[in-house]
């Protein structure tokens, strides 16, 4: 088991360099997924995104997701890198790469990994909008804004 299949990065993700780590003479297929910062979400014009993680558990849980994918789809290798910090429009926020004997399991493993990464890893993102406001994504209903400490149910 490779201990560094999941990484959290504070610097730009370079997919071409990451791909090289997955080159394998037994691989007939390589698939990858890149998540990019887009300039609009739910009708709001986005200026930039801010990602935060709890790195020790993001690494542990991400590693677990990748090991599950390798076992479930019998692929040769897989890796993931997730950015944290302030990201501008067009930047790569997350990269997943998979190498395998054939394309079908490579596609499936890649999809599995990104889907699980999004719901299992302790990573959060805050959208900063063109109008100067900001919001934590998926947290719209979990708290009122303005630092209220009242009963919110």
């Amino acid at each position, binding site marked *: 088991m490779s201990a560094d299949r999941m990484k959290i990065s504070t610097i730009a993700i370079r997919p071409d360099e990451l791909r090289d780590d997955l080159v394998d003479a037994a691989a007939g297929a390589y698939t990858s997924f890149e*998540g990019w910062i887009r300039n609009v979400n739910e009708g709001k014009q986005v200026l930039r995104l801010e*990602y*935060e*993680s*709890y790195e*020790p*558990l*993001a690494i*542990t*849980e991400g590693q677990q997701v990748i090991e599950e994918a390798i076992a479930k789809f019998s692929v040769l290798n897989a890796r993931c890198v*997730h950015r944290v910090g302030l990201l501008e429009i067009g930047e790569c*926020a*997350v990269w997943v790469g998979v190498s395998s004997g054939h394309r079908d399991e490579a596609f499936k493993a890649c999809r599995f990994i*990104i889907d699980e*990464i*999004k*719901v*299992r*890893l*302790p*990573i*959060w*993102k*805050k959208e900063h909008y063109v109008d100067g406001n900001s919001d*934590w*994504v*998926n*947290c719209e*209903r*979990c*708290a*009122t804004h303005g*630092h*209220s*400490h*009242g*009963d*919110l*149910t």
Partner: protein
Amino acid sequence: MSKSLTIRYFAIFRENAGLGEESVTLDAETAADVFALLKHRHGSGEPLGHCKVAINDVMAEWQDAVADGDTVLLFPPVAGG
């Protein structure tokens, strides 16, 4: 029974609490008790199932017991990718 716990808040929970970590004494048996007793701090009205919890750096379930001296990490709904 009262327990001395270290609580860590993340993302919107940290912003609502106004700090990332604090020591508290709570009459809590489970992680769910901790979440409920600290609602005035993390400010969450989210169903418990949408949030996550870790105890001493290990992902945990809300019904898991907390012990004196534990560090409880309260995670709002995650949004990676």
